[in-house]
């Protein structure tokens, strides 16, 4: 029988198949842990006297409440609140107690949970990967079955390395043709979410395919799979191919030499078979995707940056327009910008920073605009600095920070002020996501950087003429 990538991943991890009465027991190959969604799960383990079944399949990092400013002379980190500090210390204590590896403050491998997994090569094709974080879908870019879970389930995985799961339906998103120069994976993601809606993928595992997907780098594929949850799909998948293998080759956690070649051969077999069936198929013309921004308070409220904000057709859209201060019918390129954030698990990898630097080189951030750039990991930071990107950013007037979630979730003290309009390369434009009363416009790193220079929303192709 012809099987999809999803079917193959699911079947390989069924400990006990599902019945009408019971969901399947699904085995988890990699459990990523961070400070915000784990403390209550560890508490349950302690109350019940349980241990972590597979500490060797569990990896923790500090990212969400973690400062992006350096420690002071006595080594104290500038936590936003005592609670944030306590939360980080709780994870440190839990990892020590249960024997879990933690990428702590002084570890050169520390970073955002969805950046470090791929970077270390612990994210691999064919694995099941979970984390108490909805953007775990990111790892699907490698052909891994990866999805976000709540804290109760974090406890389940810690204690049993398994989850009860019902099989989702399968959706194929086919990008036909190739994207135009200057159009990025972020634009593809926003175009996809606009087309199917913020709940269009609910109940589905999505697979992305087509020529434009094959042409994407791993960074781009991660950006796209990261955003599948913004269309409601817990899982976003891309079949592994040579691009995947080239990315993984030589990374610390993958086998080396002949063993790696043999593993790649197995991984090739994961791709969806010809004739395999999906419950829903969506086609998107890649060539017609343009640089996108959001204009509302849900990620599906997206439009080409060159377009006008659509007219509000109901009370809800009117409220969103009021909150955003973007008049229906207004040209989006006329929207004034107060802050720009480049970072988050969506767009904080080296390729994203290179793209932002290509736009910002020999340019200045507009007067009154604040540009904050937080690399996705310590390794990304070092790589960027080795390439001199930090100098480009600083010369342009940007604030170059240490790695972390930063303004994506605004838990660590990095945030906008009430009323600020922030162009952000993160994934959620929800009301107050980047600080109380802050208005968020989602965009690619290129569009964000161009908007920082222009002081208003801007088509990045204006600045990329020599490059694209």
């Amino acid at each position: 029988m012809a099987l999809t990538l999803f079917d193959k991943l699911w079947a390989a991890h069924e400990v006990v198949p599902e019945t009408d009465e019971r969901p399947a027991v699904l085995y988890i190959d990699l459990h990523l842990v961070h400070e915000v969604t784990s403390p209550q799960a560890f508490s349950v383990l302690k109350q019940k006297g349980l241990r972590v079944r597979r500490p060797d399949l569990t990896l923790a990092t500090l990212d969400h409440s973690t400062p992006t400013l350096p420690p002071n002379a006595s080594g104290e980190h500038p936590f936003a609140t005592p609670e944030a500090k306590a939360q980080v210390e709780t994870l440190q204590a839990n990892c020590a107690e249960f024997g879990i590896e933690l990428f702590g403050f002084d570890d050169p491998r520390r970073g955002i949970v969805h950046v470090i997994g791929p970077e270390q090569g612990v994210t691999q094709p064919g694995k099941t990967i979970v984390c108490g974080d909805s953007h775990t879908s990111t790892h699907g870019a490698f052909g891994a079955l990866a999805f976000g879970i709540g804290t109760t389930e974090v406890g389940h995985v810690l204690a049993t390395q398994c989850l009860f799961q019902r099989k989702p339906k399968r959706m194929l998103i086919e990008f036909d043709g190739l994207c135009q120069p200057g159009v990025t994976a972020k634009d593809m993601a926003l175009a996809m979410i606009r087309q199917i809606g913020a709940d269009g993928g609910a109940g589905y595992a999505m697979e992305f395919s087509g020529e434009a997907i094959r042409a994407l780098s791993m960074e781009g594929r991660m950006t796209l799979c990261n955003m599948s949850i913004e269309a409601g799909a817990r899982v976003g998948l891309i079949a592994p191919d040579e691009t995947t293998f080239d990315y993984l080759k030589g990374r610390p956690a993958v086998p080396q030499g002949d063993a790696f070649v043999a593993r790649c051969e197995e991984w090739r077999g994961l791709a969806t078979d010809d004739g395999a069936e999906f419950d829903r198929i969506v086609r998107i013309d890649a060539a017609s995707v343009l640089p996108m921004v959001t204009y509302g308070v849900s990620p599906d409220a997206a439009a080409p940056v060159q377009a006008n904000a659509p007219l509000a057709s109901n009370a809800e859209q009117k409220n969103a327009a009021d909150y955003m201060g973007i008049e229906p019918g207004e040209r989006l390129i006329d929207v004034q910008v107060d802050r720009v954030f480049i970072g988050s698990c969506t767009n904080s990898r080296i390729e994203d920073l290179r793209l932002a630097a290509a736009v910002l080189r020999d340019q200045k951030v507009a007067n009154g605009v604040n540009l904050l750039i937080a690399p996705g990991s310590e390794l990304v930071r070092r790589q960027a600095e080795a390439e001199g990107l930090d100098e480009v950013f600083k010369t342009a007037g940007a604030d170059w920070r240490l790695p972390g979630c930063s303004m994506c979730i605004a838990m660590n003290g990095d945030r906008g002020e009430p009323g600020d309009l922030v162009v952000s390369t993160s994934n959620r434009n929800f009301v107050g996501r980047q600080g109380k009363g802050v208005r968020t416009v989602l965009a690619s790193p290129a569009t964000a950087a161009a908007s920082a220079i222009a002081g208003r929303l801007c088509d990045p192709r204006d600045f990329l003429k020599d490059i694209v």
Partner: protein
Amino acid sequence: MAFASITTIKSRTAVLGAENIDTDQIIAARFLTTTSQDGLGQYAFYDWRYMQDGTLKSDSPLNASDIQERRILVGGANFGCGSSREHATWALLDFGFRAVISTDIADIFKNNALKNGLLAIEVDRETHEALLATPGVEIEIDLPVQLVRLSNGRTVPFEIEAFAKSCLLNGVDTLGALLAQSEAIAAYERRRTVEG
């Protein structure tokens, strides 16, 4: 977590009709630096209930004088989308809600809710519209027979995953059932050497 078993919930409703109510609205990230799951009700929909200066918003349905007695929250479509934070479920439970009704409830939120004894119920569009239009109406959710009884006597069926239902009826969490699978899990690990 263990919770009291649920069979029926009879209550007046509270209505938040907006679509796409994300978990950042239910509990904002600034309240997530906790290491406990208790006492989060005070933060539920905080920015929807309080003005900038900390005074109550008089027009918020969540500030109704009898809100403490309302056990059922009716929300707009795609309720609970966004972040996986289980704090959203804990906050709604601590606030006093025992059930959420919408046309569609986001997957991760639904999962979290059912695991904590917060019923997450999806009804047809017509029923949903009627509920949105009549805030404060008394309805009854009957879990064993999977029916919502409306004030006009009409009954509306709903689906619920069978295992979640039995856990809710018996007030047991699923961790025990997973731990009981430890032999099957060990056999799986032998069959397919899982490397760290």
